């Protein structure tokens, strides 16, 4: 476990809803090496998204330890987490979550506001990220002027703009047609293989999961399958 890049050690997480307590993860353990591409599958409520949120520092565990690239994420305070996220994690959401009032380029530049880069440098970095996802020609378009696939590619460009260590993708193809989904998965695969990004992706789509190098299947917070995929 010492050379693992993402580590979840004896992690427990409960949610309280409507007076009921739901134990999503109980003493859960997981280890992911650097530059891996992992797909998380499982039925709703199995704990997939909870794992993403804990790794991405969007949520905190009740007990246990979460470490990413050696950083003790679970020990960080609410004040420390945003700065850490901005430097180390890129998020891709199912519903894209672009800001509708901003252009594609401005959306991509948004996380760069938190870096010491100058305005022209931020612009250049955003252009580079958009180029990687093949949307240089759509830089000035607003989200409403883009297709779903294009929106998700802009979201991926935003996720990689700060050159993070980890990309967390929560059902990135859930709202897309097959063709657009394939395009998005192709980009994620390239980011993993060519740029060495560690990718943790939740999906319900078996075809999307096949793009990952490793497939983890969860059920009620328990890892029921962990397999390396050939040809991914």
């Amino acid at each position, binding site marked *: 476990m010492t050379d693992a890049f993402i580590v979840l050690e004896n992690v427990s997480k409960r949610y309280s809803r409507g007076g009921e307590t739901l134990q999503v993860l109980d003493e859960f353990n997981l280890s992911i090496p650097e530059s891996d591409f992992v797909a998380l599958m499982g039925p709703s409520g199995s704990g997939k998204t909870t794992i993403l*949120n804990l790794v991405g520092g*969007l949520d905190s565990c009740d007990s246990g330890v979460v470490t990413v690239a050696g950083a003790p994420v679970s020990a960080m305070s609410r004040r420390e987490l945003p*700065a850490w996220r*901005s*430097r180390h994690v890129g998020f891709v959401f199912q519903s894209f979550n672009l800001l509708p009032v901003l252009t594609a380029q401005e959306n991509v530049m948004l*996380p760069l506001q938190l870096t010491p880069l100058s305005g022209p440098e931020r612009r250049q970095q955003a252009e580079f990220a958009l180029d990687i996802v093949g949307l240089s020609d759509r830089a000035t378009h607003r989200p409403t002027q883009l297709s779903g696939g294009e929106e998700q590619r802009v979201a991926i460009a935003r996720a990689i703009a700060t050159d993070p260590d980890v990309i967390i993708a929560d059902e990135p193809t859930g709202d897309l047609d097959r063709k657009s989904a394939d395009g998005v998965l192709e980009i994620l695969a390239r980011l993993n293989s060519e740029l060495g990004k560690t990718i943790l992706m939740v999906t319900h789509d078996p075809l999307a999961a096949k793009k990952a190098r490793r497939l983890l299947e969860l059920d009620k917070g328990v890892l029921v399958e962990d397999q390396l995929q050939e040809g991914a």
Partner: protein
Amino acid sequence: MARKTRNGLTVVSISVAVFLLCFLIGIVQGLEASVRSASATRLVTQSAVSLFVSLPTSYQQKIDSVDGVYLSTKFRWFGAYYQERENFFAQFAVDPNRFLDMYTKDIEILEGPDGITGPEARVAVQKAFASDRRAAIIGTGLRDDERYGFRIGDTVPLIPLLYQRADGGAWDFVIVGYYQPLKERIPDTTMYFRADYLNEAFESGEAYGDIAAGVYYINTLDNAPVEQVAEEIDEMFANGPQRTQTITEAAFASFFISAMGNLPLFLGTIGGAVLFSIFFSVVNTMMISGRQRIQEAGILQALGFRPITSTLLLIYEGLLISLIGGGCGIVLAVTTEGLMIRMLGESIRNYHVTPDMVMLAVATSSILGIVAGLAAGLPFLRYRPTEALRSIG
């Protein structure tokens, strides 16, 4: 699109609120201006019974004899209109020479007969008053108003509402000069004419009315104890045919405002309630806007921004919207000032949008924007990123 519409409507609401704020303050200040600029050393002697009861002309000599009195003039409401009932303006019967001497610091005679202007105009007007009992001076407003357009030398027939002539006709007045007010409480749409023109007509039977003075305006000597002079005048007539009440001109002006039933308080209460409602609706709109943007706050948090960033953005947005709305309201208030003065007419002729009011409007808009932004943005601080991202707005 929905957001643009909402922001547009919010801007309009704030514009209306700020315009209303300026308008109401303008009215209240306009009402109070007459009191502010009224003299505290000039006295008004009126009937103790009612303002509408005239005092005898015989009182004038007695008033003049009181220690501390420098000068007095009759001041009697005439009440007539020019051609149409809508063409109504104030006319007062006065002792012309005394009136002009009394108001040297309050009005300036701009022009007398034969185009005489400058310091000689006053003397020329006094001569004209002496030579023609129908002589009258008018404010520049009556000269400039298209409905009247009176000029020096014109004979102006006024149709009486109070004092009918025996022949059923109009009273003729000859314009002998224009005056310009030097103090804001004095209107520029008033006509002053000889009181003896009226009284002689009543005496000869040319017209119907009682020979009287209306009220007396009294200038006191410098350093004279004004309150004591007033008391002496009232004591002198305590057993007379008409008991008197002598008050300062400032108090007299206040009396007219209070006669409207404490209008400033009324306007302040109603206006305040309306403003309060509009301001609350703006805050509510901003809070709705905030609730619909919780997910955006979640996105920003996921990207690494701290929760306070979203709160500050909403405060900035609230401030911007409020200042744009406030600016539009101020522009509306300033550009409609002339129109409002015409609409309000003589009742509130000192309506003005002053720099102080503009500053108040800017401050109010700013506070509104900050409060609305805070009310909408503070809840963002409570949300964890996962909760915010789950929000559907």
